Structure formats: C-alpha cells, structure tokens
C-alpha cells in the first residue's frame, strides 16, 4: 500500500471515529432532555447544565478509551494514550464551565458549595475535586514522583475514576432536574452500570487482542483534534438548540 493510500485510509478512519465520538457524547444529552421533554429555563442555565452532561459523557467515554490500544480506529497505541489524556482535559474543562456559568448566572448557588448544602451538591463538588486530582496526578512528571509503580497508579486512577462517576451520578439523580422520570433513571442506570461493568470485565480479562490496520502511520497527532473537535462541535450544537428552545 502506498504512503498516500495509507494516509487517505487514516483520514477515513478518523472521520468515522469522529462521527461515532459525536454520537456517543450527544446521546446522554438527547436522553435527558427528552423522555419526557424538560421545559426550557433560560439559555445560560440550560447551556451550563448541558455542558455538565457533556462533561460526564466525556468521563464515561474515558472508560472505553482507557488509554489502551483498541481495534477501532486502527491506530497506534500512542493515539489511544493521547486520546485518553485529551478527553480527560476536555471533561475537566466542560465541568469547570458548568460550575462557572451557573455561579455567574445564579450567584446564590454559592450557598450550595458550603458545608450546609444538600448532600447531592456536595457530591457534585467532590466529583469535580476528584476529576481535578485525576487530571493533575496523571501528569507524567508528577505521576512518576507520587507513584513510581505504574500498576499501582493505574489501580488507584481507576478506583478514583469510578468514584468520580458514582459521585456525579448522585449529584444528577439527587438534583432531579433532568433525570426526572423512572424511564430516564432506568435507562441511565443500565447504561452507566453496563459501561462500568464492561470496563471492569475487560480489565480483569487481561489485555485485548488488537488487530492492526495495514501500514498505518503513527497517528498520535489525530487524537487531539478528535478530542477537542467533538466537544467544540457539540457546544455549538447545544447553543444553537437552546437558542431555539428558550422561551421568549
């Protein structure tokens, strides 16, 4: 296969992967806004919460693209390591924007960051702190100083990540803003527990047997645009949708 053909194949895979990533990130948002439909509040409020949901969707995707090589897209292992890292930063940015925008729009929400706040709000705050810890402690130089043993780091990182998702779930279910029906709760619980179950099963089963595409170049550089691209695209879509649905 010529170098040109290889690169064309690489771009095709990237496009297919990009489309799948967008679908995976937007699915939870579609689910929580429909079944049944939630009335629009205001542009900033709804947008801020949509960013929170996108952040959680990114976190969940991190369990699938956990930094280990996968069958699709058929890129080198470095791609998946970069993708995991970039998606983690995207998740942190989205969740920070969720908190920042809500505090800007409704400063009284500061009351919900104090010790006297409802437990589901403290759970959300703890999830944000955990996400921050997960991102910072994964910076290579820092990680090597804290955990010289890489396997121990991976175990602690995975345990903290599961804790982060559990706390986010508590925050979302407790606030009952969008997961406001038993159908939504059922679908969300089955999806999230299925995903975490799949992750734990794949980790316990050992390394995946990965088939590689023929002759693809090291495609680590794709991962960054593939991580930031969907987040940016979805933010624009969410903004456009909310502009249409906001009451006059």
């Amino acid at each position, binding site marked *: 296969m010529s170098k040109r053909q290889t690169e064309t194949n690489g771009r095709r895979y990237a496009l297919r992967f990009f489309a799948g990533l967008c679908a995976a990130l937007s699915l939870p948002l579609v689910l929580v806004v429909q079944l*049944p439909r939630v*009335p629009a*509040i*205001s542009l900033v*409020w709804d947008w801020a919460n949509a960013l929170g949901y996108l952040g959680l969707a990114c976190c969940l995707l991190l369990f699938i693209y956990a930094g280990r090589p996968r069958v699709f897209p058929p890129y080198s292992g470095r791609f998946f390591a970069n993708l995991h890292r970039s998606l983690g930063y995207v998740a942190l940015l989205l969740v920070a924007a969720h908190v920042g925008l809500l505090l800007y*729009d*409704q400063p*009284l*929400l500061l*009351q919900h960051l*104090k*010790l*006297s706040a*409802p437990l589901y709000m403290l759970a959300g705050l703890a999830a944000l702190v955990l996400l921050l810890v997960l991102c910072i402690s994964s910076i290579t130089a820092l990680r090597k100083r804290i955990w010289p043993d890489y396997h121990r780091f991976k175990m602690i990182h995975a345990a903290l990540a599961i804790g982060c998702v559990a706390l986010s779930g508590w925050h979302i279910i407790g606030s009952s*803003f969008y997961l*406001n029906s038993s159908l939504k709760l059922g679908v969300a619980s089955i999806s999230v527990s299925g995903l975490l179950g799949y992750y734990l099963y794949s980790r316990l089963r050992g390394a995946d047997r990965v088939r590689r595409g023929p002759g693809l170049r090291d495609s680590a550089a794709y991962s960054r645009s593939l991580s930031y691209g969907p987040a940016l695209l979805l933010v624009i879509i969410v903004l456009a949708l909310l502009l249409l649905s906001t009451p006059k």
Partner: protein
Amino acid sequence: MTRFSRYLFALAALLLMLAVAYAAADWRWQAIEQRPQLPVAFEHLDHSGVACADCHHNFIDDSGGGACYNCHKMSPEIRARIEPMFHDFCRGCHLTTRMDDQESGPIRECSLCHH
C-alpha cells in the same frame, strides 16, 4: 515497606477517613442549624388556584400553627430538611403545571424566588 506495615498503614488511613467523615457530618449539622434563612418572595394571590390545605397542611392534620417557618425552621426534627422540603414542594408543583403547558412559578432559577 513490609506487607504487615502496608496493611497497618491502610488501616490507619481508613480510620483517619472515618474520623474525618464523622467530624464533617457533625460540622455539617451545625452549619445547617446556623445558616441564615434566605428571603423568599411569595405572593398569595398568585396561588389562589391552589387548595389552601395543599400548603397549610396543619389545618387538617393538627401538626402546628402559625407561619410555615415556625415549625419548619424551629423544630429540631425537621429544620435540617427545610431546604429540600420547600424546594421539592414549590418547584415540584411549578414543574408539574409547566409540563401541562400552563403558566407557573419559577422552577430552577434561585433569584426568581430568593430576592
């Protein structure tokens, strides 16, 4: 570090976490009791379509008298739950009405009630 000292370290860390959680629960309870009551804008006239006893339950269950806050803020048994109790009650009713495509009060934004 031997295996025994690792277990000992893990046990000490667990005990420390439990102690912190216990202390935090106590601080949280004190913070709830001491937090100031936020001002609430409430117009009786806006709620003329709602049956009185839906809010003033004490008229029919003899659970107290006077303004809502006399019990809900003063009673030690229920004051810790004043916020979720009122939020769920007011917003729940507003949300149900809004879902039926009728006009209703605020359902999410803090500043529309607390100003």
